[in-house]
């Protein structure tokens, strides 16, 4: 398959799986405004998924659709970052996960606006507006809860420590990423890290939270080599109808 296919799949699987996770909150958020905001975030991510997986399907060129890719692959064929598949945990963990992803997502999309591949830069142009809003919101919430009560502070610090080891994967290029960089499709992942670190450091400082020292990073999601046990459980729900009633039109 082409580099563009691999790249689009990685983007689309991340937005798909994170969008799914966020959608699990529906009707259970701590405040009505958060219910709305979470649904809105999930909605944007699913919309972006349609574009990315649509591009991957087009590039694959075997007549498959974005839905086929979303609903008919098993866990080992998914290429989302591990961060996206981690369980929601409490609201703090969900928002911290969101912020850590959003901040990367924004930088990535901004860089992709300059992609040599027009179909990629078009998606980035559309998505970057949504994601600017996501990061604004998740950042505010991380700060509000980090610098809130002692309890909320502790929960956010715990969330940060739990999630931070999954950040490294977002900046660790493999052969596919290097090819994408060479072909001008995507930026060098590692080159985004400095801006990311600066932004996150700034946010955490305002949130009175301490970034973990360790740079240890789990990996295996974006290559598909080793997902967590959680992904398989997501798929049992997400793909249920398509698996149980193959070929039906919905």
């Amino acid at each position, binding site marked *: 398959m082409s580099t563009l296919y691999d790249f689009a799949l990685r983007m689309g699987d991340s937005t*798909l799986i994170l969008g*799914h996770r966020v*959608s*699990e909150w*529906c*009707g*259970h*958020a*701590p*405040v*009505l*405004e*958060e*219910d*709305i905001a979470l*649904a*809105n975030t*999930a*909605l944007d991510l*699913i*919309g972006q*998924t*349609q574009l990315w*997986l649509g591009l991957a399907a087009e590039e694959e060129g075997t007549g498959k659709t*974005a*839905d086929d890719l*979303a*609903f008919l692959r098993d866990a080992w064929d998914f290429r989302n970052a591990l961060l996206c598949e981690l369980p929601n945990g*409490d*609201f*703090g963990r969900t928002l911290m996960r969101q912020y850590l992803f959003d901040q990367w997502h924004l930088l990535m999309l901004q860089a992709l606006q300059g992609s040599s591949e027009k179909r990629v830069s078009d998606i980035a142009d559309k998505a970057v507006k949504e994601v600017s809003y996501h990061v604004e919101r998740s950042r505010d*919430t991380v*700060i*509000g*809860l980090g*610098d*809130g*009560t002692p*309890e*909320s*502070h502790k*929960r956010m610090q715990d969330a940060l420590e739990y999630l931070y080891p999954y950040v490294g994967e977002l900046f660790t290029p493999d052969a596919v990423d290097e090819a994408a960089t060479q072909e001008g499709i995507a930026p060098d992942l590692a080159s985004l890290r400095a801006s990311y670190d600066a932004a996150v450091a700034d946010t955490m400082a305002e949130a009175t939270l301490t970034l973990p020292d360790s740079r240890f990073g789990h990996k295996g999601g974006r290559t598909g080599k080793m997902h967590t046990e959680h992904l398989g459980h997501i798929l049992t*729900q*997400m793909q*249920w*109808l*398509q698996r149980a*009633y193959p*070929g*039906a*039109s*919905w």
Partner: protein
Amino acid sequence: SPEEAAFQDRIDQDIKIEPKDWMPAGYRKTLIRQIGQHAHSEIVGQLPEGNWITRAPTLERKAILLAKVQDEAGHGLYLYAAAETLGVSRDELTEQLLDGRMKYSSIFNYPTLNWADMGAVGWLVDGAAIMNQVPLQRTSYGPYSRAMIRICKEESFHQRQGYDIMMKMAQGTAAQKAMAQDALNRLWYPSLMMFGPSDADSVHSAQSMSWKIKMDSNDELRQKFVDQTVPQAEYLGLTVPDENLKWNEEKGGYDFSQPDWEEFFDVLRGNGPCNVDRMEKRNKAWDEGAWVRDGLMAHAAKRAALKTAAE
């Protein structure tokens, strides 16, 4: 009293009552109950549809369903805001929901058991809701009337989307068609219940109608709903689960069976299939969210204090 007379006079002339206007205590109380219940229904109503968001069969359907549930939360927000103009806070209303003092629409105590329910909820439940709500756009209380105008627009969009799902299912595979019929079977009578018991048995109707809080009789609306819905079911090729359903040329509408009102009152008493689960979920969300609300408030207070100090 002269105030009451002047108040009724304004209502009769279709002049809206606004938050700062004088109003009878009963009017305020009835409105709070009605708007509050409506708001709660939007909130609890997220749950039966939320139940299928993680299982939506296509990306498009998932997006549509997410948008719909988001709209419902938004409706809750407008309605709580309308209730707040009457002097009751959203938190007070929420507490009354959570400890069972206030109700929400009984329909949400029925489960969603297959994907076609996502269609049937839009088609039947939103359909019945709109039937109830359209007249309320002309209700006498200004903020409520304006909220209803906004809500009705979105609801009719939801209803069309629901019908669209039903169409896909009814025209789909045998299994899909069976799901559609099953959904109609389960949701038909609960939808008829949404208009409330026959007016003969309804307590507050007369006063509410003269206050223009209630605009039409329950039975009229139910008839209208049946007359609108039966042809739609026929178009889908589905069978309304009522052996007595028959066109009555004379009255220009359908004759139909009443729902099981004993079941209705049983559900009101808390014995519906999902009452306990729905309230357990809402209470859990509220209790587990306490630290978030506290945290955000504490932060806002710190910010405000900083700002004051800087001035």
